[in-house]
């Protein structure tokens, strides 16, 4: 579609949006711009029409099955959106006095409690604005804890090779060196290797459990013991909490810090990339270090704690409260699910994943860990198919789009060659899973019979296969007017 810039005409505007013009003679000219920025010059209807039509070019949960592994693309209840957009919540300035935000703060307070309860943690801060920032907060607290005890020798964070890229990147941002440890054939951590790399230099371990391989790390108690005995702390990457929600608490596994991806487990929208929210929970000993603000109740009154209340805090991650509107959506979701609903999430997410895995296994696909239960996701490797037909996981994924399914996550985790990481989530019905299995079988058959068709997919979308190499070689990152 034409760019919005290419649709306008000089002097056109969405006139009803313009405030009356006013004088700014008092600002000296050298502060001012001499030419206006080149922005679209379009009418309100042009804008509405353009972005409405653009939106139709997206796959999304509201239109398609979206089994993107590690991302928990579940249904985003529309009630949560209505609630976050209530005028009372929407209009308040974050720095307005707490007395004017008691309704909002009461929701935050409840959400903290709910998350603490579900993770088995002592206290929660809602400040982090996504999973990666939750990781940052978590590792920064680990660091603060060691330093507060005068333990300056700890320079390493241990991370399994299957971990999400945010884990090592976060460790680096927190000034740590990353020690990567391998995964064994069963998808578990290699304990011997873990023992080998753990020592007085170990600040902690970052772990996702169930892991990004779609299996539950069974030796978790031993792992926790190894790290704790060495004086390190355990960080839980909660991206996969959906798999065990309401059933198993990270705190019970021995974790000291946890982050939760609300945009995954708590069904807040992914918004085409964000905003998310990544609250962190901690055990009692880490509570003083929690990022600010934290909401407390004092009698009937709610307020936000600040640096005076929490002098040991790692500090602030945003100028305000984090992603408030996302937190409200998660609160609403949590209240709708309630006690029995939480455990059901884990049950049905797991049921769906294991069903899909069983069906694909029966259909002849190579399951990465066939001898294991799937958690809420699992991996298919297309290595054999690629060897036989030349059709790669990427080709396969693109062809699935033609069948009306968003592709699973491809090429992650990197351990498994030509992998598809498939996460159906609990909100999809069996009918949809069956249709997906049928599409997988159909594409596999095409790969054998007419591989070119798969390699040149997609065929039915607004564009054909895009040239990524060209995009990276000559980056065209912004439209500029032709002069």
């Amino acid at each position, binding site marked *: 579609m034409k760019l919005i810039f290419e649709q306008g005409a000089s002097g056109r505007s969405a006139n009803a949006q313009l405030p009356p013009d006013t004088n700014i003679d008092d600002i000296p000219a*050298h502060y*001012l711009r*001499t030419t206006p920025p*080149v*922005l679209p010059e*379009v009418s*309100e209807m042009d*804008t*509405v029409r353009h972005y409405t039509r*653009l939106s139709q070019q*997206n*796959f*999304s949960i509201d239109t398609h099955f979206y089994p993107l592994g590690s991302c928990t693309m579940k249904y985003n209840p529309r009630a949560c959106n209505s609630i976050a957009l209530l005028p*009372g919540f929407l209009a308040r*300035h*974050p720095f307005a*006095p707490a007395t004017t935000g008691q309704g*909002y703060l009461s929701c935050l307070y409840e959400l903290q409690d*709910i998350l603490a309860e*579900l993770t088995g943690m002592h206290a929660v801060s809602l400040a982090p604005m996504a999973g990666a920032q939750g990781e940052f907060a978590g590792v920064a607290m680990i660091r603060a804890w060691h330093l507060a005890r005068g333990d300056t020798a700890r320079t390493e964070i241990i991370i399994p090779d299957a971990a999400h*890229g*945010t884990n090592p*990147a976060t460790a*680096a*941002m927190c000034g740590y060196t990353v020690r990567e440890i391998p995964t064994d054939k069963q998808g578990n951590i290699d304990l011997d290797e873990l023992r080998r790399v753990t020592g007085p230099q170990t600040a902690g371990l970052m772990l996702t459990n169930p892991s990004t391989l779609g*299996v539950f790390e*069974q030796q978790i108690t031993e792992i926790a013991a190894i790290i704790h005995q060495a004086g390190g702390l355990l960080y839980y990457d909660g991206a996969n909490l959906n798999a*065990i929600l*309401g059933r*198993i608490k990270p705190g019970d*596994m021995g974790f000291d810090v946890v982050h939760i991806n609300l945009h995954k487990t708590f*069904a807040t929208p*992914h*918004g085409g*990339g*964000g*905003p*998310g929210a990544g609250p962190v929970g901690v055990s009692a000993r880490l509570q003083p270090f929690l990022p600010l603000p934290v909401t407390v109740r004092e009698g009937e009154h709610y307020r936000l704690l600040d*640096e005076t209340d929490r002098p040991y805090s790692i*500090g*602030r991650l945003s100028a305000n*409260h984090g992603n*408030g*509107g996302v937190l409200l959506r998660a609160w609403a979701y949590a*209240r709708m699910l309630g*006690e029995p*609903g939480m*455990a059901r999430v884990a049950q049905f997410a*797991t049921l769906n994943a294991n*069903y899909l895995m069983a069906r694909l296994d029966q259909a002849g696909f190579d399951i990465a860990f066939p001898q*294991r239960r799937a958690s809420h996701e699992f991996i298919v490797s297309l290595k054999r198919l690629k060897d036989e037909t030349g059709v790669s996981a990427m080709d396969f994924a693109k062809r699935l789009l033609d069948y009306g399914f*968003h*592709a699973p996550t491809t090429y992650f985790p990197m351990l498994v060659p030509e992998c598809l990481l498939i996460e159906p989530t*609990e909100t999809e019905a069996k009918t949809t899973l069956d249709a997906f299995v049928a599409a997988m079988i159909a594409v596999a058959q095409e790969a054998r019979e007419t591989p070119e068709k798969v390699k040149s997919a997609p065929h039915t979308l*607004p564009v054909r296969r*895009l*040239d990524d190499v060209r995009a990276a070689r000559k980056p*065209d990152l*912004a439209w*500029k007017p032709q002069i």
Partner: protein
Amino acid sequence: MPFIPHTESDIRDMLSAIGAKQIDDLFDEIPSSLHARQAPSLPPALNEMSVIRLAQERASRDPANLNFIGAGGYDHHIPAAIWQLATRGEFYSAYTPYQAEASQGSLQVIYEYQSMMTALTGLDASNASLYDGASALAEAILMAVRAHKTQRRILLPRTVSPLYRRVIATLVAAQGIELVDLPYDPHTGTTVLPAETAPFAALVIPQPNFFGQLEDVDTLTDWAHQQQAHVIALVNPTSLGILKPPGQWGIAGADIATGEGQPLGCPLSNGGPWFGFMTCRQEMIRQMPGRLVGRTLDTENNTGFTLTLQAREQHIRRAKATSNICSNQGLMVVAAALYLSLMGAEGLARVARACHANTQQLVRRLTAIAGVRRVFQGALFHEALLQLDRPVQPVLDALLTYNLVGGLDVSAHYPELGHTLLVCATETRTVDDIHHYAISLQAVLEKGMA
């Protein structure tokens, strides 16, 4: 079972395909010791009707006061079209456009947004958003340090928001970066250059600064460049409707521009979700944190859009990535693209001018009251620092009874300036609103409150 579509017969059929007796069997690999622990104790489930009623009751506890706080978040008009479109399911419930061909909607929006932000800031490339303005500034600092290679010192004026400075301290703490405060001129409230010239990686220049004052960006930029340092412009996007864009500061222009995107269509919403923006010069693109969308061609030579230069990012580069950021503030970018399309250059300039004029008028009205004076001289954008003759907080508390959130008490951040109040009047404040504030403040001060 809210949001779970399984029927009894679905469950039976699925278990039998798996070869399991009951759903619980699927958890049999999890050590039994972990199952044995105490189940979480949570409030009971509410249906949608009840949770909406509860939320409405709570939201109605949060009164709609007339707001005169800015300080990083601004009460702008948000065109009705924006959120009616941004919450369309196709935008709202999609994720990062990993499958480009199935995500041309999101991708083209981001590309257009990137184009708009480069136009606004006068720089070459924009990323697809960061979390918020404060964390974006921290990322800009890290980026400047990476780009500079030899120095890790950053000059950070005290005219940068105190809250931003706290966030930066948190986010760059572990990376051996030295943050050096720069003082401000007590008359103009603008940054004073240090006498010393020890080498540093970058100078941060806020425009307008936290006090609402306009910095002499040309001089500051040229000075920093003379010191072989980068210039990080911390800018308000509304102000760029009228103020000189960072790309044109001084002789060579700033190297990185960043700031809080909230004024471009995000509701105040208790502080979030908002978003951070970042643009930079062409040469620095590969140091940029966050996602980038590029325009490319498909196999039939049609134009299309895709995520690009991903080798900077954590999912490829892992510990060596330019940042750990993964999810960003995507939906806010949709809102910003809509906002900038609807406003255009003319609209944005008018908004900026109206904010300025309203704030000027507010300052005139308030400083006409005995015991209220403006702290600094010189040009301001849409905020001003006022000094009261008594502690600010009790005055603000009293104003609340007039349905007014009268500004931000910043006395604790700048004790040297006495009892200070930061006020802002955007284009949404009317003559009547400003009048209401003036007579209310007069009444409060006369009653000898506080």
